[in-house]
C-alpha cells in the first residue's frame, strides 16, 4: 500500500453481496475480543462514504449487483477491496448458476464497463474464511506479512524433470 496514512487507520465497510452469512459472521467475529482487529486501527463504519476498504463477501447475485456497484462508487479513492471467502473469490459452490455473477473475476469486468476503478484487491479464500484468515488478508494489505501462496505448476510424465 502506497498510502502511508492508511497504514495506521483503516475503516472498513462490510458489503454482503448474497453470501451465506458464514464469512459475514466471521468478519464480525474478527471485531470481537478474541481477534479484535481494532488493534490494527481497523474500524467498521456504516456508510461507504467513510470507508477505505470494502469487505466484499458473497458471489454477487444478479439482484444485488446494482447496489454493489453503487456502494463501491460511493467509496472515496483510494479504495481497496478485500474479497472474502470462496464465493467472493471464485464464485463458490454456486459459481455457475443462473442468479449469480460468480466471483470477483467476472465482477471486475463489469466494474470496468462502469468505470469504477479499484486500487487494489486482496483475495482471501476460505469457506468460511476464518477470522485469522481475514486478519491475514488485512495484514497483507498493510504489508505486515508476506504472501505465502504462489502459482504452482508441476509437469508429470514423459519429458518432465521432477
Amino acid at each position, binding site marked *: 500500500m502506497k498510502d502511508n496514512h492508511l497504514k495506521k487507520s483503516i475503516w472498513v465497510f462490510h458489503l454482503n453481496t448474497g453470501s451465506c452469512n458464514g464469512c459475514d459472521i466471521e468478519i464480525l467475529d474478527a471485531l470481537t475480543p478474541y481477534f479484535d482487529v481494532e488493534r490494527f486501527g481497523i474500524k467498521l463504519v456504516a456508510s461507504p462514504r467513510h470507508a477505505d476498504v470494502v469487505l466484499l463477501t458473497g458471489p454477487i447475485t444478479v439482484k444485488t449487483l446494482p447496489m454493489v456497484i453503487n456502494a463501491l462508487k460511493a467509496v472515496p479513492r483510494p479504495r481497496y477491496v478485500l474479497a472474502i471467502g*470462496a464465493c467472493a473469490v471464485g464464485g463458490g459452490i454456486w459459481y455457475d448458476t443462473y442468479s449469480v455473477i460468480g466471483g470477483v473475476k467476472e465482477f471486475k469486468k463489469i466494474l470496468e464497463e462502469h468505470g469504477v476503478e479499484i486500487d487494489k484487491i486482496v*483475495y482471501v479464500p476460505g*469457506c468460511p474464511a476464518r477470522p*485469522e484468515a481475514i486478519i491475514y488478508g488485512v495484514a497483507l494489505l498493510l504489508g505486515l506479512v508476506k504472501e505465502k501462496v504462489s502459482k504452482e505448476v508441476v509437469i*508429470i510424465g*514423459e*519429458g518432465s524433470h521432477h
Partner: protein
Amino acid sequence: MSLKKLLKPFKLLSIAKKAGVVTVLYPYQKPLITSEFRGKIVIDASKCMGCGACANVCPPNALSITETEESVILNYFVGRCIFCGMCADVCPVGAIRVSNEFELATTNIDNLNTVLVHKLKGCVDCGKPFITSRMLENVLKKVPFAEKYINECPDCRRKRFINIVSARKR
C-alpha cells in the same frame, strides 16, 4: 432493593475484570486453531496419477480435470475450495492430504492455482497419447499380467481384438 438493581449493570466491570484481555495476538501469536481444522489441500505430485476421482466428488469444482491432446491437467483452484476434504477421502493413491493451512490471501488471483500436468503416454501401435504414466504404473502394480496390452490405446486394443476374433472366425 431498587438501588441494588440500578447498580447491577455495573457488574459488567467485574465480569470484564475476571475475563481479562482474551485477545489472541495473531499474526504475532499462534492462531486459535484446533488439530481437526481442515484447510488447504496438498496434492502430492509424486503420487497423483491424474485419475480425476477427486474432481468428480468436488462439490464446488475447485478441482477440475481438463483433457487435451497430449496431457491431462488437474487444476486445484483454492479460491473456490470449500475445504470439505472429500477429495482426500476418495483419492485411490492417497495423494491428497488436508493441511491446516489457511493463510492463503493474495493480491493476484492466479496465485491460488495449483496445476498438475500429466503428460500422456503414447500408444505403442499408433502413437496416440492416451494414458498417464502414473496410471500405467498403478495398473501394472495391481494387475501385473496386464503388461501385454496396457500399452495400447483403447482404439488399437479394440482393433486388435476384432482382428483376433475375425481371424478365428475365418
